């Protein structure tokens, strides 16, 4: 099998050895769950329970407030303790529903699975929205929106993202090894909703066992498995489409503009659970890894479990922490403390001590152009960064700064250690602020 890839990108050390061989373990229930109302891209959900209410596992506790929004569900049975601002992985204090866990873990009796054959695609789409399913690769874009292309944009291909190009993370890898049947079932449902025949699973070739496992499972279903060259950020939607189909998403456009929908493997598994069993998205696999953790693990975690509790399940830390990252090391969010909970988009929790971190001194730009070669979106990071520093957002916009997806390849590659992606992010915020003003 030939290996496909995209133009640009970098090769960070993959560091997946900490947790790649560890089977998924079920994380026990903590004493309380903190379930933020904002866990997805789009409008935050609106709570429909009050303090003191008894809730079941899987019960809807907050409703979607717009088309681009999803409901939130209780991740276990218990009592609503509080609805108040709590630490959120974004570093802000955002409203959350706090549930006191009763330990019985009773499913909401009204949740029932149904036979797919009797449902049309609109009903399936409604069900997927009601189950609160979002893109689980980290971007948390509501899945039902991706599955509702307008009539003038016909979809011909469904790409399933099993790339997991971020270092350290092995959650999707383990999902593919242990739940390949469920993923294939989810893909079949997604194909039915979109009415497409062609489905391709993209997996990087550093996971030969996953490729073998998925090829075996997909054989009987007319689903293709495509091995890809190992490169970051191959797991980004637009780069994956480029690698697999050699099609380019236009600037400011969406994959549906070129007839493609991309879904993560974990999302496909969640879709299968939502339709077959009627179970909403209340748990996900999270990789807890990094040099500072005693035992790296892949845990099946309830949404809303505090990070501190997750760390206890991994026997704590070896030495004092200097950096906590939620997500992957390239695009993940640095955390203020371990108080924030795991949410739907949390793919990993990485822990580093002082000695594990590089000590960076920022130099001057030597115009070597490595950031330009590395940029998977073919931007000029150094140029945009210098405009951002000067606050000249109009020029930054002329250079398409708003197309940047903040993958960090430019900063990773810069020999002068310039904070390019940080400046690009600042330019993007400036452009947005300018657009809001006018």
């Amino acid at each position, binding site marked *: 099998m030939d290996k496909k890839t995209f133009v640009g990108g970098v090769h960070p050390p993959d560091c997946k050895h900490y947790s790649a061989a560890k089977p998924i373990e079920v994380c026990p229930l903590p004493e309380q769950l903190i379930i933020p109302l904002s866990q997805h891209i789009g409008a935050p959900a609106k709570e429909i329970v009050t303090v003191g209410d008894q809730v079941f596992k899987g019960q809807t506790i907050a409703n979607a407030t717009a088309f681009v929004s999803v409901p939130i569900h209780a991740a276990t049975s218990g009592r609503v303790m509080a609805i108040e601002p709590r630490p959120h992985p974004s*570093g*802000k204090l955002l409203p959350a529903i706090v549930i006191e866990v009763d330990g019985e873990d009773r499913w909401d009796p009204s949740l029932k699975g149904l036979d797919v054959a009797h449902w049309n695609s609109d009903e399936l789409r409604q069900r997927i929205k009601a189950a609160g399913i979002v893109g689980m690769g980290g971007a948390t874009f509501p899945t039902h929106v991706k599955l509702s292309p307008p009539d003038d944009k016909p979809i011909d291909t469904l790409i399933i993202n099993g790339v997991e190009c971020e270092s350290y993370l092995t959650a999707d890898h383990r999902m593919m090894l242990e739940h390949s049947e469920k993923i294939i079932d989810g893909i079949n449902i997604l194909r039915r909703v979109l009415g497409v025949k062609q489905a391709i699973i993209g997996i990087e070739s550093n996971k030969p066992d996953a490729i073998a496992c998925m090829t075996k499972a997909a054989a009987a279903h007319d689903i293709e498995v495509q091995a890809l060259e190992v490169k970051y950020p191959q797991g980004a939607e637009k780069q994956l489409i480029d690698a697999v189909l050699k099609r380019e998403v236009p600037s400011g456009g969406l994959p549906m503009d070129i007839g493609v929908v991309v879904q993560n493997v974990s999302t496909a598994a969640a879709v299968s659970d939502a339709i077959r069993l009627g179970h909403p998205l209340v748990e996900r696999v999270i990789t807890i890894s990094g040099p500072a953790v005693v035992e790296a693990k892949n845990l099946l975690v309830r949404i809303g479990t505090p990070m501190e509790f997750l760390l206890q399940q991994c026997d704590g830390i070896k030495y004092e922490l200097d950096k906590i990252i939620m997500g992957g090391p390239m695009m993940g969010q640095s955390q203020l403390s371990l108080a924030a909970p795991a949410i739907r988009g949390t793919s990993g929790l990485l822990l580093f001590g002082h000695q594990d971190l590089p000590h960076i001194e920022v130099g001057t730009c030597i115009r070597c152009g490595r950031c330009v070669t590395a940029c998977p979106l073919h931007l000029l990071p150094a140029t945009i960064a210098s405009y951002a520093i000067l*606050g000249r957002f109009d020029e930054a916009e002329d250079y398409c700064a708003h197309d940047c997806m903040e993958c960090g390849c430019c900063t990773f590659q810069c020999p002068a250690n310039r*904070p390019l992606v*940080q*400046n690009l992010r*600042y330019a993007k*915020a400036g452009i947005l602020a300018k657009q809001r003003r006018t």
Partner: protein
Amino acid sequence: MLTAVLGLGQIGLVAAIALGWASKKFAVDVDARELAVNEVLPGVNCGACGYPGCSGYAGAVVKEAAPINLCPPGGSEVITAIARIMGLEDDVTEPQVAVVLCQGDNRKTTQKYIYTGMHDCNAANNIADGPKQCPNGCLGLGSCVTACPFDAIEITADDLAVISRERCTGCGLCVTACPRQLIRMTPATATVHVLCNSHDKGGVVRKYCEIGCIGCNICKKTAPEAFKIDQFLAQVDYAHDDDAAMAIDKCPKNCIVDFNSTYPDGSKFKPASIQPPTPACAGKDLP
């Protein structure tokens, strides 16, 4: 020799006639009033009026009948002068100065995390709502300093922005530059201000700031007319602020300051007099 003189003379004559004709034919009508208005404007091109520079504003006043009181740096003198040129009534606005409503520098407040990024408040505020524990306090990275065309703002050694009342012309550019909306335009005659911008409850404020308003109501009890409490934050009512100075010594957190007697800690600016600031056009001949 003679040929050269005559030749050049002829060329000169033809060119002179052509230029003379062109200057009549292609003459641009400039309203004399526009030139006069441009002359009285301060010429700092700060953009506070919302037009591109002083000449842009002069054009707008004459051609588009823009309001004549849009030039804060010019102050009342410029308004009077424009009114005279345009034959309008002078609509003199009260001079204003900008005040940073915060005294919580790095020694008096706590930080959520160590910020090592771009030296810009807007960039810092995008990351987890800024490094300061106080959600509304001054970040001290100087976005307002960059925005100020009059060099009227300084950042103290402990990262707090302070605005000089003498140099501030009231253009308001710093107000839009601040991501936390803690710079306010206030009447230049009002020198007593509550220098805090946090609406958090007293107990919460105490945890992160030594000098923040806790909403204890003592100032309002001392001078009921001069203060109002809005969501645990005292504010001076600038319409009735005659007695505001009485509360300065009573405030348990020392967050009420009279700029006539002192500036916030660490500032190099000298206490201001009660006189309104000198307009930037001072010294120019006014028609």
